[in-house]
């Protein structure tokens, strides 16, 4: 990527590669903030979205908007130049027939009461077409200046819950486990088909970026999760989640698991058993202190001791040094809570002493 809007891109690439392999430190943030000074390139600002439909579902408008915003975004530190192509949390469910509604702040993906047992991938599904149109439109604008991120597809039981409803999935775990097994197998099969098609569009010389948690790798990259698992036992996790996550980790080159909520920590041992999983991101959840708090140091040490890299999120500047002192910089990625480029400079100054 000769034209990339990040002068020190080669250094950041090396740090990501090190991080995936349990070494080194990444200082980044998830969303972008506006850079100081001139934009990377003069890009015309698109007219404001006419309505929520255009805001979320007009691929040309969204590509123009992302292109404009990225031209003014800071990529200091290890912040990735990546277009956030989100089409809702868990857009694989939309592709498979869930209902979709664009809200003020997010896209809602809702289950359908009449969804049957058969999980079918229809190439003509309008949301799948939207994925392809949006990614292609963004790729055209990007022209090698930034990555086009893979949307947050989500997989497994979370996708099934978005299709059939959480309660139905949870009850099937007990009442119809064999049906659930078949559906999980099918969802993974479709996931790989969809993911591979997306990779074909978004990859840059084989490299790709994933929108959620802003991750990059020199190959296929994905964020994996099972948020629904906060509601069931470790035994059920090993039965209905672990085998499918393992299969994803085996098929995808670089994988980050999003561990969400205190109640999900009980599944950490099962996650650490997946040899091919590279890293674990910790989201403490509402009502808990964010990822830089000392409360989570032991969790991070446990993850690292289990052979995985760590991603800590929404770390504040004053939490940075104590976190590095207590957890150690190797295999640590920090999604910082930056408000300005001055914050980024201050964080990089602290981080420099640990590199």
């Amino acid at each position, binding site marked *: 990527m000769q034209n990339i809007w990040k002068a020190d891109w080669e250094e950041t690439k090396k740090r990501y590669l090190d991080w995936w392999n349990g070494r080194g430190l990444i200082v980044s943030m998830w969303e972008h903030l506006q850079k100081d000074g001139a934009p990377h390139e003069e890009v015309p600002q698109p007219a404001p979205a006419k309505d929520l439909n255009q805001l979320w579902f007009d691929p040309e408008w969204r590509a123009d908007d992302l292109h404009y915003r990225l031209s003014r975004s800071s990529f200091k530190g290890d912040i990735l130049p990546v277009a956030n192509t989100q089409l809702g949390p868990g857009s694989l469910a939309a592709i498979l027939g869930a209902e979709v509604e664009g*809200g003020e*702040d997010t896209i*809602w993906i*809702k289950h359908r009461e009449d969804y049957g047992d058969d999980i079918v991938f229809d190439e003509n599904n309008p949301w799948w077409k939207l994925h392809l149109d949006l990614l292609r439109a963004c790729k055209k604008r990007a022209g090698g200046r930034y990555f086009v991120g893979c949307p947050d597809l989500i997989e497994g039981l979370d996708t099934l819950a978005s299709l059939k409803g*959480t*309660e139905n999935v*949870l*009850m099937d*775990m*007990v*009442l119809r486990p064999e049906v659930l097994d078949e559906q999980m197998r099918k969802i993974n099969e479709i996931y790989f088909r969809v993911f591979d098609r997306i990779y074909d569009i978004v990859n840059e010389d084989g490299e790709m970026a994933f929108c959620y948690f802003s991750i990059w790798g020199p190959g296929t990259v994905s964020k994996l999760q099972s948020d629904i698992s906060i*509601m*069931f*036992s470790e035994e*059920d996790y090993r039965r209905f989640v672990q085998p499918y996550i393992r299969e994803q980790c085996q098929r995808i080159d670089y994988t980050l698991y999003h561990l969400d909520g205190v109640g999900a920590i009980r599944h950490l041992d099962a996650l650490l058993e997946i040899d091919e999983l590279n890293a674990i991101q910790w989201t403490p*959840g*509402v*009502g808990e202190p964010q990822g830089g708090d000392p409360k989570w140091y032991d969790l991070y040490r446990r993850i690292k001791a289990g052979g995985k890299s760590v991603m800590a999120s929404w770390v504040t500047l004053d939490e940075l040094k104590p976190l590095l002192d207590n957890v150690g910089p190797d295999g640590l990625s920090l999604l910082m809570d930056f408000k300005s480029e001055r914050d980024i400079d201050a964080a990089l100054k602290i981080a420099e002493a640990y590199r």
Partner: protein
Amino acid sequence: MADMEKLYEAVLGGKLEPAVEVTREAIAEGADPKEIINGSMIPAMEEIGKRFQEGKAFVPQLLLSARAMKGALELLKPLLKGDASASVGKVVIGTVKGDLHDIGKNLVASMLEGCGFEVINIGIDVPAEKFVAAVQESGADILCMSALLTTTMTYMKTVIEALEAAGLRDKVKVMVGGAPINRHYAEQIGADGYSDNANSAVLKAKELLGVA
């Protein structure tokens, strides 16, 4: 003679068919419906709730117990018509406007119903006027509101204000819950109670009605 211990075990184990079968037998033998509910079904729901709170049971087990309880309750409802003492209290429950999350709310509804409350579940994305109308029409003792987003939790206060404006606030207790909610927030917006899980919601509801 119907084996009431079997009914207890069926509800606790989340087994619908045995729960319905034993209840049908008990009704045929002329058993007191209230005794069936209070003697076997509610204790089973309380036990599964306790196990949930202790981390020995999880949401699938709660859902299945509630399903078994509801199945048996359907047979008993016609026999209890007009008997106000059969219900611990009447609850209106919903997720506030702008929020489409329903699992936590439904779980609380199931546990409340399973533990003897009459529950009117008015769904998700519920505007203040619909909460007010439901309370007014049903004469509910308790209004339960759920929110899973920090952006929607503030709407709970709007609903409480709407209850005040409609002259209903002193006639109904208000309980709130959901991931971003805590006791402090509940107090701040003028709610009467808060709970962070389905089991403690039942205990709090009983406490508010003085039937704990």
